[in-house]
């Protein structure tokens, strides 16, 4: 028996939790998160509990103004795309947490092309070139840690994380080169921009997202590549034994990630913002990591969590103004509470916590 003073709590793996119970816990967690957001709002501004929910709803589903709904769907689309793009790498246990920078580099390339393309070119041609440049840039940014991991077994988590910072500095530097008056503001694009549909320039992004979603679904679940990724994720040795070249698959997955991150950067610059700044990805690259993980790499679950995050983000941003509190902090608190609770639910549905009861005859040493 244990001779050491042991911690009064211990956990065991939970076996055979019914699926409906698991989902009940999750739904309960989600509702709790939204409740906590309301309580936080009330604490910051007494009496604002109901205003919070009505404003939250108005910020997401104001049907008198279609563009509000499109704003929500665009936020949802970007989060969904990022999480989906991360999924193949995560499935093979390549922990890429550099989405933020990988998208930013693509966005930077797209912005450069859109800004400096000859104005005689038709808009569609500029868009094609911007997309191409973004994809090449992001693919290179993804392949650097991919190559190091494949050939030198470098830790990809630290490597990709570090490259986020390099990307951010590179973006700032390029702006100061492009904008010679020293103001460091890129301004808006006048060419290389998505058409406005239903009063919103991001409408096409939503449509492209649907297409990519279907494509990624089949890539992850039905293709040979998806199978190889799954095998490597289970066991690298098994994959080797089965004749899968792990290095090649790593590089392939990172190339695909890069192509998609480039497209996302292109969507953000030419579609949604029609502008560029070093903070334009706004942390979504990190939120995407959480969403991919919470969605168990299942595209439909990922879509659910991306949607809930988008509701949280758009809703709390609007609600913050109504109760006159700092938007970014309030959104950060609510999003933080949301993820914290969902992760806790995840933990408690996988593991059971027990209180250690002293057994008779057990001797405790001082």
């Amino acid at each position, binding site marked *: 028996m244990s001779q050491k003073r042991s911690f009064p709590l211990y956990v065991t793996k939970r076996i055979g939790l019914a699926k409906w119970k698991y989902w009940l816990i999750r739904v309960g967690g989600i509702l709790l998160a939204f409740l906590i957001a309301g309580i936080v709002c009330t604490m910051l501004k007494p009496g604002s509990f109901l205003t919070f929910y009505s404003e939250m709803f108005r910020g997401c589903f104001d049907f008198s103004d279609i563009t509000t709904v499109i704003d929500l769907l665009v936020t949802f689309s970007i989060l969904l795309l990022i999480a989906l793009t991360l999924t193949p790498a995560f499935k093979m246990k390549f922990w890429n947490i550099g989405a933020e920078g990988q998208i930013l580099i693509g966005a930077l390339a797209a912005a450069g092309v859109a800004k400096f393309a000859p104005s005689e070119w038709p808009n569609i041609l500029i868009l094609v070139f911007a997309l191409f440049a973004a994809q090449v840039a992001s693919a290179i940014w993804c392949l650097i840690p991919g190559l190091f991991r494949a050939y030198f077994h470098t830790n990809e988590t630290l490597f990709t994380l570090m490259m986020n910072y390099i990307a951010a500095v590179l973006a700032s530097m390029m702006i100061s080169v492009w904008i010679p008056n020293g103001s460091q503001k890129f301004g808006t694009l006048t060419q290389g921009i998505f058409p406005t549909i239903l009063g919103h320039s991001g409408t096409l992004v939503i449509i492209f997202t649907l297409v990519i979603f279907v494509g990624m679904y089949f890539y992850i679940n039905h293709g040979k590549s998806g199978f190889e990724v799954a095998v490597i994720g289970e066991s690298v040795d098994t994959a080797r034994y089965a004749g899968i070249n792990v290095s090649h698959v790593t590089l392939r997955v990172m190339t695909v990630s890069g192509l998609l991150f480039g497209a996302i950067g292109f969507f953000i610059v030419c579609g949604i*913002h029609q502008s560029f700044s070093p903070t334009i990805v706004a942390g979504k690259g990190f939120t995407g990591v959480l969403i991919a993980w919470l969605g168990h790499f299942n595209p439909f679950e990922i879509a659910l969590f991306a949607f809930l995050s988008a509701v949280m983000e758009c809703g709390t941003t609007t609600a913050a103004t109504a109760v*006159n509190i*700092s938007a970014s902090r309030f959104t950060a608190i609510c999003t933080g509470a949301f993820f914290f609770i969902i992760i806790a639910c995840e933990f408690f549905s996988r593991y059971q916590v027990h209180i250690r009861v002293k057994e008779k005859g057990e001797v405790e040493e001082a």
Partner: protein
Amino acid sequence: MKKQTRILLALSAGLITLGAAGCAGVNGAVYTPGNPVKVGLICVHNDQSTYDKNFIDSMTVAAKNLGKKIDGNPIIKTDVDETNDCYTAAKDLVKQGCNVIFADSFGHEDFMLKAAKEWPSVTFCHATGTKAKVAGVANYHNAFASIYEGRYLAGYAAGLDLQRRIAAGELKESNYRDGNVILGYVGAFPYAEVVSGYTSWFLGVREVVKNVVMDVTFTSSWYDFNAEKNGARTLAERGAALISQHADSMGAPGECATMGVPNITYNVPTPEVGKTYLGYSKIDWAPYYENVVNSMFAGNGIEGETNNNWTGTAGTGSVVYDCVNAQDKILVEGIKAELVAGTRKVFDCAKFTVDGKHLTSYLADVDDDGTFTGETEAIVTQGGITFFNESAYRSAPYFDIKIDGIAQLNN
């Protein structure tokens, strides 16, 4: 899984149709003079940043002074990035029925302009921007204040203090370079607004202490505590006997206190750092906010505007400064009276040289047409003084000349 795909597709299609069905678009409120004005304000950060706090506080004061001319409390949106988020914020303010929408950050400009074109019945007023003059959008306005006057006055006050320290023999040998006293300035970007700011401050000090030179460092950020702290330290280590800054954090004032170097702050007074605090200058936006609302209420265009640009001055109460020493303040008030009367000019060409020569002509980049080249002759002669006519052709500063005696360290 196919079923799920179908559900998802149906859901999104449903959402879009539902939205399209109920979609009426956003209509800007039409304002009738004499009714309370609904006011919105878009801020790039929140009241934890001294820059935004200055705007928010000014709005609070203006709202109090305007009383019943304002409809309820102004709606303030904080932490609005200089991206399409600014347009989205403006849209929400339009939806909530705002008649006039203000924004406080330079990078908001393009998105404010986009919104102004979309909702012509709503007035859009952008502080620090440069495009209203050339945009030709009737309901889009720029505003700034001649803060170079405020910095000049704060510099003058600092010069009086420096003069006393020199007389008392408090300066060390390291504070001199070739017989000149070294000054330091922590700037944000090498941008006209910053260049205009540090040059006017330098000229203010030099009105009192003739033998000064200045080092300028840039932080490449409008708000970066560590960079501003390090900038101030670098300047102090290079011998600066007096430091000021454009940047907004407590980084530079705090470091000046540590290093024992007197400091002039911007946007916010910092007496809490102790005896190194000499004074400050800032823009008070309340007179502008009150002017806009009063003009709208009366059914007029914004009073005092030229080409949709409004420049606040010491005369309108927009330029504010203060210094700790009460005796000095009396002297500085005299200088201020001369500026208001126009008998003294900050950028008096007789008072500075460029490459050893006094300027007689300079084409300034006033029109923000994307070319970044000068097109407006900015040197004028009025009342016997030849000077650089700052903030006259548009509200935002356009003085971007590197004058003799000032060295940019890291640009």
